[in-house]
């Protein structure tokens, strides 16, 4: 069958069973938009800024097991999308971004709305393509989807010059794809797994540390099984929350810069560490030299060999797909028939319970001013822990991570790697579209929300009843916290003067706005908001402007050199 490039693009999206494309039209993608218009299988969501399109596709992908798709025009369409693409890249989120390009003959001539898209995005995509021949288009899109979701996932961009989208060719969608240069490993090395099992069974002070890889590979069930089988303590990274149920007693909380006292202490003092789909990030282990001071054996499971022994030397590297490797470890432990050292484990748990006794997440519950931690706790209660929670970046992000107990994977969406303010609201749109009827909250700050506030308009157009939980302290809080602790209280440009009236702002977009300034009203407001199933409700909580996030490990310090709230 002979089709135009634009028709091929839409056919390919249909073949990939794409439900939603998040995008913004422009000159170079007009033929593609024309074909979108003529069909109704692939639905288009018109955002208000291309950054929002990519974040929305990203939120959609994070909350499902599917690839998110964005469509943008050439030039500024692409440059606006770059922040979203880099966000997805840092967190390994499978996306396909289709961008328009100026006609082939104009490339390199500084044409109107021309940028070197492939060049600009190269460092922040898993791979990208410039399609120069319409005959390659279908196979390229097939490759893009395959690359995005296989191996270590990531965003893949396909740049399509305008003339290519208008040119006709014979179309057939390839059934499968094979690339001699790309063959991700699936099964872990048997010998390494055997060594890992040995170490785990001999451990006196074991610890399991899991990251976003568990979520991305849908390995939560296998992880829970293994953790219960072993009886070991487990911690999650910011990206890994929900990979292990937060309400389970073997969970010691999140670790890292704002991790719990018990998680960080156990991480430092364990003798055998099993790292699963995590990458020993600077925000997670602090100073690597300090971390290496205590000798411990490290087993590291990851699909990406370059994540292994990058920041921390590991003893047993296992390259493979996390669920397969976890399954194999569990199977081998069963077949060996040995149990971990019960006595040592009991003593280790006693130690951990002592650390837990610090109650490092306590805060002033009797405060007359609303405490942000209280709002998140109430959000957890009101939604019975069932909400999909998106967050922006800053103090509110950490409070959401610390106080909302995620029991299931793919319920917590945040920009962990790149730390992109403005991520929350558009991501929540993608999540809400993927899960119509489910409660979706966007926990945000007055700094972050204003970075993509225009998407309130998109929410109105598509009737997305996201609940915005704004923890408003009038400061760029995380910046202010660092200035307070490390820059002699000099609050350089971290006070946001002249904030809008968020209630009126929400109303002007056609939504419901509420201002809450008393602790006693927090629960009621949240209940009221979630009762309004069809409305976007913008809750503006006036929180304590002096509240900080604790525990805290200062950048460059060791994991156990924590600042606790009680010390101040």
């Amino acid at each position: 069958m002979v089709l135009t490039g634009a028709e091929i693009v839409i056919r390919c999206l249909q073949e990939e069973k794409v439900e939603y494309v998040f995008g913004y039209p422009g000159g170079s993608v007009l033929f593609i938009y024309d074909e979108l218009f003529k069909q109704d299988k692939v639905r288009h969501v018109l955002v208000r800024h291309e950054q929002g399109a990519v974040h929305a596709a990203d939120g959609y992908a994070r909350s499902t097991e599917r690839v998110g798709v964005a469509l943008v025009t050439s030039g500024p369409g692409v440059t606006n999308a770059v922040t979203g693409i880099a966000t997805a890249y840092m967190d390994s989120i499978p996306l396909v971004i289709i961008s328009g390009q100026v006609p082939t003959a104009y490339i390199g001539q500084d044409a109107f709305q021309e940028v070197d898209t492939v060049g600009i995005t190269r460092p922040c995509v898993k791979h990208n393509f410039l399609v120069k021949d319409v005959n390659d288009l279908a196979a390229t899109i097939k490759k893009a989807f395959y690359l995005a979701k296989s191996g270590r996932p990531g965003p893949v961009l396909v740049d399509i010059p305008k003339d290519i989208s208008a040119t006709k060719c014979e179309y057939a969608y390839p059934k499968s794809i094979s690339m001699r240069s790309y063959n991700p490993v699936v099964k872990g090395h048997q010998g390494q797994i055997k060594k890992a099992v040995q170490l785990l069974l001999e451990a006196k002070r074991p610890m399991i540390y899991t990251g976003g890889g568990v979520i991305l590979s849908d390995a939560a069930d296998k992880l829970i099984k293994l953790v219960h089988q072993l009886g070991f303590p487990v911690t999650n990274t910011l990206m890994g929350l929900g990979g292990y149920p937060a309400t389970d007693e073997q969970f010691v909380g999140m670790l890292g810069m704002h991790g719990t006292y018990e998680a960080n202490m156990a991480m430092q003092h364990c003798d055998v560490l099993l790292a699963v789909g995590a990458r020993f990030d600077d925000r997670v282990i602090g100073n690597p030299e300090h971390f290496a001071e205590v000798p411990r054996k490290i087993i590291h499971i990851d699909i990406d060999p370059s994540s292994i022994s990058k920041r921390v030397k590991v003893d047993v590297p296992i390259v493979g797909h996390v669920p397969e490797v976890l399954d194999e470890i569990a199977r081998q432990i069963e077949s060996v028939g040995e149990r971990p050292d019960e006595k040592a484990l009991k003593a280790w748990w006693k130690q951990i319970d002592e650390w837990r006794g610090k109650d490092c997440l306590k805060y002033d519950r009797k405060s007359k001013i609303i405490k942000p931690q209280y709002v998140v706790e109430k959000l957890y209660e009101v939604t019975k822990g069932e909400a999909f929670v998106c967050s922006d970046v800053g103090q509110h992000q950490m409070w959401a991570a610390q106080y909302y107990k995620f029991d299931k994977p793919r319920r917590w969406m945040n920009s962990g790697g790149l730390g992109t303010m403005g991520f929350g609201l558009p991501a929540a749109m993608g999540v809400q579209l993927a899960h119509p009827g489910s409660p979706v909250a966007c926990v945000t700050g007055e700094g972050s929300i204003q970075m993509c506030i225009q998407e309130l308009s998109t929410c109105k157009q598509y009737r997305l009843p996201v609940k915005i939980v704004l923890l408003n302290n009038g400061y760029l809080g995380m910046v202010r916290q660092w200035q307070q602790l490390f820059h002699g209280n000099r609050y350089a440009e971290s006070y946001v003067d002249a904030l809008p009236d968020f209630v009126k702002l929400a109303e002007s977009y056609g939504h419901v706005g509420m201002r809450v300034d008393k602790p006693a009203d927090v629960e009621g407001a949240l209940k009221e908001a979630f009762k309004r199933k069809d409305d976007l409700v913008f809750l503006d909580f006036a929180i304590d402007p002096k509240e900080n996030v604790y525990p805290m490990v200062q950048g460059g310090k060791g994991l156990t050199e924590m600042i606790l709230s009680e010390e101040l």
Partner: protein
Amino acid sequence: MRHVISLLIENEAGALSRVSGLFSARAYNIESLTVAPTEDPSMSRMTIVSVGSDDIIEQITKQLNKLIEVVKVVDISEAAHIERELMLVKVRATGKDREEMKRMSDIFRGRIIDVTESTYVIELTGNTAKLDSFIEAIDRSLILETVRTGVCGIGRGDRVLKV
């Protein structure tokens, strides 16, 4: 430590910039990089000379392997291997220098491939050290220009880099 990394990569537009971009983005050293298509025109072979600790070289090979278009990566300096570089040197060759230059070229087993009344172009191949010592050995003031290809390398014996 100095390492010689050989790799096979799909011969596609932009492939070179993916490799060079990786080195600059991750602040890895690059001493030289050579690339040309292989006997299979769909694939190019690259030789990269880099300096770094074992940890860094390990990361470099892993990161190169991660590039979608890279088919195979080998650190050929891990075992017996051969390195060659080609240099063209244009020198002033007049009066008594003319004979001296011819003699030096012969000693280093170079070839004079272009002759004018006042200049020679000398072609020289060898490993990096040999080319360096030729430059050291001749009168510097007579050098008009030099151009070097950078190192290309191959493993000795049965060690073969092929798909």
